Structures are given as C-alpha cells and as structure tokens.
C-alpha cells in the first residue's frame, strides 16, 4: 500500500496545511492539488468558480472587520482551499503592474491577505477538535535545538489539559527533559527582576512544565505568518506562465479594489510605513479640517500649541492615524516634527515673531492660480501652451504624453472618475492634433495610467523637470508654476516627499 498523501488523506492535508514549514515542496503541492480538486465537478474544471472564490477572498482581506471576525469563525472552511485561495490572491496582487517595482514587504494589501489567512487557519485548527493536531503543532513550536545529548526522545508536548489547581484554562504539558526557555511564558507589561520581563506564568508539577495555551496561539500565529511565505513561494514556483496570465487576465475584483484605494488617495491601505513626515502632515491637515474655525485653520499660521490642541481633539480613524497622534505627545514634539519636515512643500515656519508659528497648507509658491474646469484650461500655463502649439506640428514624444496624462489624472475633478472617463476626456483633447489616432491614443493613455514608480502613482512633472525645459519660458519670467498654480489635491503634495522605508519582513 502506498503511503498516504495530503491529496488523498484529510488528516495529512490538515497537518501539511498547519505545519508547511516541516514539509517539502512535494507535500505542499499535493495539498494544493487537493485544494484545486474542489474546483473539479464530474471531471470538469470549474475555473470561474475558482476565480470567483479568489476574488472573494482577496477583496474580503481588505476589510478589517472580516479579518478580525475570521479569528472566531472561518471564512474558508478547509485548509486545502484556504491555502489555494490565499496564495492565488496574493499572486494577483503581486502581479499588478503598479507593484512591478515595489518590494512586497512594502505592500500593505499583501499583509491583509496574510492576516486573513492566518486568522482563518487558526480558527480551522481550533475547530479540528480532537487535539492531536494541536499536539503535533506544539511539538514543533516548543521543540528545542538538539544539544550535546542529541535530540529529546519522545514527544515534546505530552498532553493538552486542564489543571484545576492552576486555575482556569488549558495548559500544554511538556516534560522537563524536553523543556527549553521557549516554554517559559511570561506576563506582559510588568516589570520584574527576571531577565526577560514579566512574571513566569508557566507552572511546574510532576516533573513537567505546564504552558498556558494562550502562548501556543501567539507562537502559532508567528509560525503561520512564516508558513504563508513558504506556501506562496511554492505556489508561485508551481504556476506556469500560462496559468499565471490566465489568472491575472480573469481576475478583476482585487485589481479594481486596489485601483480605487489609489484613486481615492488611501495610500495607507496600499503601502506600509509610508513616510512619517507625510503621515504627520496628513493627520495635521485632517485635524485642522475637523477643528472649529476659531481654533485653527488650514493655510493660516498657528502656534505649535494651537496646532497641538487641534490634534488632541482629532479622533483618529484608523491605526496609522492613531500611531501619528500617539507620537505627537506635546506642542514641543509637534514643533520638532514640523521643524524636521520644514522642507515639505506644505509646511511653512515663521520664525520672525516671539514664538514660532506654523502654516499647514499647500506649498506657498505665490504663483498665480489657475482654475481648471476643462482640461483645455491647462494650456493657460505658458509651457503647456508651447507644447500645445508644437503638437500641431509634430507627434508627441512619450514624455509629453506622460506629463499631460499625469497632470490631468491629478486634477480634483478626475480623482473619483473611472479610468474610462479620463481616457474619453483626454481623447477629446488629443483629437485636436493632426496625428491623432483613436486606438493608439487610447492604448498610450491607458499604458501611462498603468505605470507606477515603485508602486506610487507618479507625480505630474514640476517646473524643474528637464523634459519641460524645452517648453519653459523661464521660471523667473513666468507668473505661474505647475505645482503652485494648478488645483492639485492634498494627496499629490503629500506624495511629494514620500519615501519608502519598510521593515525587514518579507513575503
């Protein structure tokens, strides 16, 4: 009889899904095969069902409440399916052209997918009730490095049990001969004379350690995060180019959701650890918008104390905002942060008075403002007027198109528009030039919009750009400036100094 595999044995499938770091690629691929088998009905593949489920999983991962709820109630009911859907969702994200140059460790949406996977897996394992799987997992989580006496013979975890004299809750039972410091669980947030922090919660009885089961849960979450990385790698290695392009061609919901985040300026939904100065300034802007006019206003000079009052009163909406309001701990820390980011186009510091005052607003260029209701009004800028004239004579170079498309895309009236609307309006403008070809222009414009720089939506060119110099009448001659005169939204300025500096975590 041939040995059982995850493809034909549910218990083994559970074990491989729970502990993929302990298995090789063959076993993991067998787990995936078992997962894909669910999308075969009467011998027929059901690719639409698979794509629907991948989209459902991927888009659900972007919802914080769903991710949290899954820790209690599984979203996907079997580990084999979970492994397939989570990895394919992540691949759909990684394959997006906008992430082509971005490091996966900076892409927030991948973390969201992983969190949904980890929470889902944890609740599946809890529901898989006889305890032997948990014991298998504990053997892995608490095993010690082999010492001079060789590996510990026998099980590391000899039971999961209640010990009434230790109070409520389950304990993992680990013989002293198998013990290592991994088994010493400590209370968090207490000071103690112990080298590693809080009081030891692990108990001793009968020559065995009793480890509170809560520690198992948190250790397993860490494990599952690393496990996801391995599953993803094996899935990526296992997909052929045809399968990959079939997947990305047929998936649209995840892509659309990400596009919408970008279009509506929700950078925090897309990127991790985006620039601290940017985040501070964005929160300040929001706090100023929320503050009553007699407290503080955007675009006016205020003391650090007044700005701090507005921040204090601001109710942070999400985690990244809270982290910003937390680190602004006093008027002086706010003043220091603003001084550190004085070069930001939105920050102006007036040091002439008795106390410094700060203005949070748009870059104070003093340039003449242009109201843009129609795209044509951009040609009020002398450089753009020069370009317009030249395009009657010659076909555009790519930089010209790029510049034009980006400038339009950042205009406030197009922030919430679909790409189709933007493309349609741009075609109307381009139709004035003799070289216009509808198909070609449509393709080129769409291409520009799909392009990103390290995942960020590219900024429109500013007056210092070399390619614009061809059309520039000279900055000292010009009453306008591109960034100062056009009504770009805050998000554009917030992205100006954005730098990516992510943690060392990787997918």
């Amino acid at each position, binding site marked *: 009889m041939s040995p059982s595999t995850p493809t034909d044995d549910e218990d083994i499938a559970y074990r491989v899904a729970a502990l993929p770091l302990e298995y090789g690629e063959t076993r993991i691929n067998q787990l995936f095969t078992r997962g894909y088998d669910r999308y075969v009905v009467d011998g027929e593949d059901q690719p639409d069902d698979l794509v629907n489920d991948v989209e459902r999983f991927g888009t659900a991962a972007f919802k914080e409440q769903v991710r949290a709820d899954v820790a209690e109630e599984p979203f996907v009911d079997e580990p084999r399916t979970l492994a397939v859907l989570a990895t394919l969702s992540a691949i759909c994200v990684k394959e997006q052209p906008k992430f082509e140059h971005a490091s996966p460790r900076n892409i927030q949406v991948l973390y969201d997918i992983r969190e949904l996977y980890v929470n889902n897996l944890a609740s599946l394992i809890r529901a898989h009730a006889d305890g032997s799987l948990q014991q298998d997992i504990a053997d892995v989580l608490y095993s*010690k*490095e082999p*010492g*001079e*006496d060789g590996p*510990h*013979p026998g099980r590391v975890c000899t039971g999961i049990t209640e010990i009434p004299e230790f109070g409520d809750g389950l304990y993992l039972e680990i*013989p*002293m*001969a*198998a*013990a*290592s*410091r991994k*088994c*010493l669980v400590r209370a968090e947030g207490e000071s*103690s*004379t*112990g080298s590693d922090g809080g*009081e*030891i919660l*692990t108990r*001793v*009885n*009968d*020559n065995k*350690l009793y480890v509170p089961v809560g520690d198992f849960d948190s250790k397993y979450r860490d494990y599952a995060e690393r496990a996801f990385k391995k599953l993803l790698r094996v899935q990526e290695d296992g997909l052929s180019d045809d399968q990959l392009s079939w997947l990305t061609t047929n998936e649209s919901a995840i892509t659309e959701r990400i596009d919408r985040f970008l279009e509506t300026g929700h950078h925090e939904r897309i990127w991790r650890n985006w620039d601290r100065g940017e985040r501070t300034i964005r929160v300040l802007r929001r706090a100023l918008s929320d503050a009553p006019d007699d407290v503080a206003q955007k675009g006016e000079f205020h003391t650090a104390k007044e700005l701090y009052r507005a921040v204090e009163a601001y109710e942070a909406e999400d985690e990244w905002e809270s982290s910003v309001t937390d680190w602004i701990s006093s008027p002086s820390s706010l003043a220091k942060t603003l001084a550190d980011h004085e070069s930001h186009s939105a920050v102006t510091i007036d040091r002439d008075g008795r106390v410094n005052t700060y203005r949070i607003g748009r870059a104070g260029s003093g340039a003449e403002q242009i109201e843009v209701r129609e795209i044509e009004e951009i040609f009020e800028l002398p450089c753009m007027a020069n370009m317009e004239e030249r395009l009657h004579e010659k076909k555009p170079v790519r930089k010209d198109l790029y510049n034009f498309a980006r400038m339009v895309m950042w205009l406030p009236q197009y922030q919430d528009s679909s790409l189709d609307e933007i493309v349609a309006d741009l075609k109307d403008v381009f139709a004035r030039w003799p070289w216009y070809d509808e198909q070609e222009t449509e393709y080129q414009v769409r291409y520009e919009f799909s392009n990103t720089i390290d995942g960020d939506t590219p900024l429109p060119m500013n007056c210092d750009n070399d390619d614009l110099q061809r059309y520039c009448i000279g900055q000292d001659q010009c009453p306008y400036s591109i960034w100062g005169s056009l009504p770009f939204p805050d998000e554009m300025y917030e992205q100006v100094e954005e730098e990516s500096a992510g943690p060392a975590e990787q997918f």
Partner: protein
Amino acid sequence: MTWRQATREEIYAYYAEEFPRYLDYLPEFITATGPKQYAIAFRESHPVRKDEVPDKDFIRRDTWQTDASGDRTTPEFDDFEDVVEFIRHPARNDPLGRNKFALADPEVLEKPDPRPDAVYYALDHWERPWVLLVDIDAKEIARDRADEMVSANGDDRDDDALLDAAGILDAAPDGYPYAFEDVDRAIEYGFEVRDIFEDDFDAEETMVVYSGQGVHVYLLDTDPAHRYDEQSREVLNDLLLETYDIPIDPVVTADRRRVARLPYSLHADVCSIVQPIESPAFDARSATPEVIDE
C-alpha cells in the same frame, strides 16, 4: 571551631589521616573512573615541566585517556587510592607523568610538594548522565542582604564598602564577606531546593552538601525523565530564581564543564570539611576537621 585559612601542614595532615576515613561515605557515582576529571586548586602557583608555560594554580586531569573520537581507552587512576595519592602529592603523582604540561619534577624544586587548597571532581561523567547540581553561596546571600539594608538610599558603593556598611564584615566569622547567619540561610535554602526537587520535580535521589561557604543541592535521578540537558537546566534555573525565589548561581547548573568540590575534601580557606548534610539545623561551625588546632 576554627574559621581561618588552614596551614600547609594541616592540609597535609587532613588528607593523610582524616580524609581516608571518609572514603566509604563518598557518593557512589564518585569513583576513580566515573567523573571525567579531577581538579586541584593550589594556594600558590606551581611550575610545570615546560619552561615557557606559566605556573599553574589550578589543574584539571582527565580520568581516562581518549582516542581521536573521544572514546575512553586507558584509565588514569586504577582505583580511588590513586586519586587520593594524587590529591596528597599532586606533583609526584600527576597522571600527566613526564608530559611537558605536567607539574614540575619535585626533585628539582625548592618547594616540591604543592598542597591542595581545594579538590574538585567533574560533574560530567562517564558512567551516568551529567550530574545536576545547584549552587547556593553565602557570599551572594550576604551581598543581597547588604544591598537591601544599605542601597535603599541609592548609593552605589562597591561590594566591600557595602558589606562593611551593613556590618557584615565585622560580624563573625571575622573578615569573611558573609556572616554565619548567611551560611545558615544558604543551608535553609538548600533544603528548600531539595524539597522542590522532590515535590515538584519528582526526584527520588537528592543530596544537600555543605560546601564550606554555602551548599550544593544535587538531583541525582538518572532515569530518562530526569536527563536534563543544558536547555532544561536553564529552565530549572529560571524557575528556581524567579518562581521559587531561591538565590542560586545559575551558571553552575547549566555548565557541563563545571567541577564541584569533592565531598569530604577540605575547604582550606575556612578549615571546613565539605560534606553531605541531613538537616537545615546543621551547624557549619561543627565541620572543622579533627586535625585542625583550634
């Protein structure tokens, strides 16, 4: 009762006359060939045969010669008598013989016969698992006590100044960095640890040894459930220190290379016989050998 350093003559007399009487009482695992090493500390450094090698105040000697893969080949001591001879006249009976790292030939020296200030055996063992020993030192207890008494007002004096300020240096035994009450407290802790071993760690074979300035507590069971490797011993240390609040020296328990004072050897700095004890009521002042003049 004497609490002073033993003289060379007293040390010699102890190992010649009194020590052999205790050999029948040595714990069974301490044989000529069981512990992987014996070791001797000297009061004054003694030269070795090779000129360029510095004088030694501490020597370790393997009980077996080993082959390239570390397996035993030839024993260095035929029986415990040989070990006793080595303890009494280390230079004359050095197992290293004429090896260049052996103690120098007594025939050519002005001070030919170094005496052991202390005698040790290795906890790592050929015939049983690594011996588990917990060390509780009166010096540590005294320092903690001084810390509590004096440092509350926030100064950070050095150890001696601290002990002096706490009155510990002046208390009997005079001039030692602990008082008799600290030795007594160490002995009490030792029996607490023995009870913990028996009650919570299911130990059947335990031993508390008065070490001269504190105690050693042994957990001697050799069944698989008690074969604690280094990592398990680290856990034991953390539990004893934190959960049970016992002031042990954690380094000793988890270090396989450690040597321990040989039971019934003489702690020459305090004229005390190192010995297994049965009760926390043991009076350290009763451990002076007969050969020592009060």
